[in-house]
C-alpha cells in the first residue's frame, strides 16, 4: 500500500498534465463552438504550465525566497544552498507565460466577437455553411 501510494505520488503530476493536455486538445479539435475551443486552449496552456512547475519541485525544499538575517548586512551572510530551495527558473518562465496567456485570450475573444458580428453564430459548421453559400 505504501509503495503504491509513493509510486502514484511520484508520477501523479505527470499523469494529470497529460490528461489536461488531452482534454484541451480534444476540445480544440472536436468541439464545434468557438468559445469552447478557446476554453480548450486555456486548459492546454495551463497543462503545459503544470508540467513546468512540476519538474522544478524538490521534496523538502522551501519557496524560492532566500532566508537571511536582518536585511542590512546581506553580503556577509553565508551563501544559500541550492538543495533547500525549489527551482525558481520554471516559475519565472511560467509567470510571464500566464500573463501573456491572458493577453492572447483577450485577442482570441475579440476575434470570436468579430466572427459573431459577421455571421451571427459561434458554431463552426454554420459559419462554414454561410461562407460557402
Amino acid at each position, binding site marked *: 500500500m505504501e509503495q503504491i501510494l509513493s509510486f502514484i*505520488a*511520484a*508520477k*501523479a*503530476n*505527470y*499523469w494529470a498534465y*497529460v*490528461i489536461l*493536455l*488531452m482534454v484541451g*486538445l*480534444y476540445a480544440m*479539435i*472536436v468541439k464545434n463552438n468557438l468559445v469552447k475551443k478557446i476554453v480548450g486552449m486555456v486548459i492546454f496552456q495551463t497543462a503545459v504550465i503544470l508540467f513546468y512547475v*512540476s*519538474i*522544478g*519541485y*524538490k*521534496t*523538502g*525544499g522551501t*519557496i*524560492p*525566497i*532566500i*532566508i*537571511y538575517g536582518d536585511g542590512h548586512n*546581506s*553580503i556577509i*551572510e553565508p*551563501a*544559500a*544552498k*541550492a*538543495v533547500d*530551495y525549489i*527551482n*525558481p*527558473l*520554471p*516559475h*519565472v518562465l511560467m*509567470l*510571464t507565460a500566464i*500573463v*501573456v496567456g*491572458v*493577453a*492572447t485570450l*483577450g*485577442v482570441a*475573444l*475579440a*476575434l470570436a*466577437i*468579430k466572427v459573431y*458580428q459577421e455571421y451571427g453564430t459561434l458554431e463552426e459548421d454554420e459559419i462554414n455553411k454561410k461562407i460557402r453559400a
Partner: protein
Amino acid sequence: MKTLGQITVLFCGGLLLFFTSDFPDFGDANSPASLHLSPYFIENTLKDTAVPNVVTAILADYRGYDTMFETTVILTAGLACFLLLRIPKREVKSRYYLHEPTGVTLRFEGDKYPQKSDVFKRIDSNWVPYDLIINFTCRLLIHFIQIFALYVVAHGHYSPGGGFQGGVVLGASVILFAISGNLRAAIKRFGEKTAALFSAAGVFIYAGTGALCMMIGEHFLNYNFLSPLLGTDRIMARSHGIFIVEIGVAVTVMAVMIWIYYNLSSAGKQDEGL
C-alpha cells in the same frame, strides 16, 4: 471529425503517458532541470543583486531581455484587440435618459439630448437597475485594492509579487469600477487614450532603463552602471534597477488589461457596455 479527434487524442495521450515513466520522480532534488542553471541563481542572487526573492531577480535582471519582450507581447495584444474591435462612433439613433426627480425613462432621437442637464442621467439601452449595495461596497473596496496593488509592486523584492501581479490587480480595480457602476463612468476617469499612452509608456520605461545603462556604461539592461545616477553601490543599483523595471511592467500590464476590457465589454463601441 469526432472519431478522428478521439483517435488523435487517445494516441497522443497514450504516447505521452507511456513516456512519463522516463521522467524523474516528482520532488526529486537531482532531476536534470534542477542541476545546471538554477543552483547558480539560488546561491548567488543575494550576493549579486541584494534581492531575496529569486524569482523577481531572475525575472527582471538575469532574464531581463525575456521579460522586456514579454511586455512588448502584451502591448501588441492590447493593440491587436483595439485594431480588431474598435469601430468609429456611428450616428446614434436614440439614447435613453432617466429623469431623476420623477424616475421616468425618456427616449431621445438623434442629437436632441440634454447634454449638460443635471436632472437627466444617461442610461444604457440594456439597462438594469444598479444594485446600491454592490455599487457602494465596490467603491469602498477599490481604494484598498489599489493600495494593495502598489504594495505588491513595491515589495516584489521581498515577498511574492512584482510588476505583473501588481499591474493586474491595479487593472482589476478599474475593471471592478466599470462593472459595479457603468462603463462610461470608468472611461471618463481612465480614458482610452490614457490606456494607450500608459501601455506604451511602460515599455518605454523598461527599454529606456536598458538604454540608459548602455549610454552610461557597457551592456543593455546591466543595472550595475546606474550606481552613479542612483547614488548607491553597484549591488544596490541592481536592486533599484529591478524596481524601476517592475514599475514599467506594472504600468503596461495595468493599461493593457483595462484597454482589452473596454474593447471586449463594449464590442468596440466604448459607449455602452457590460
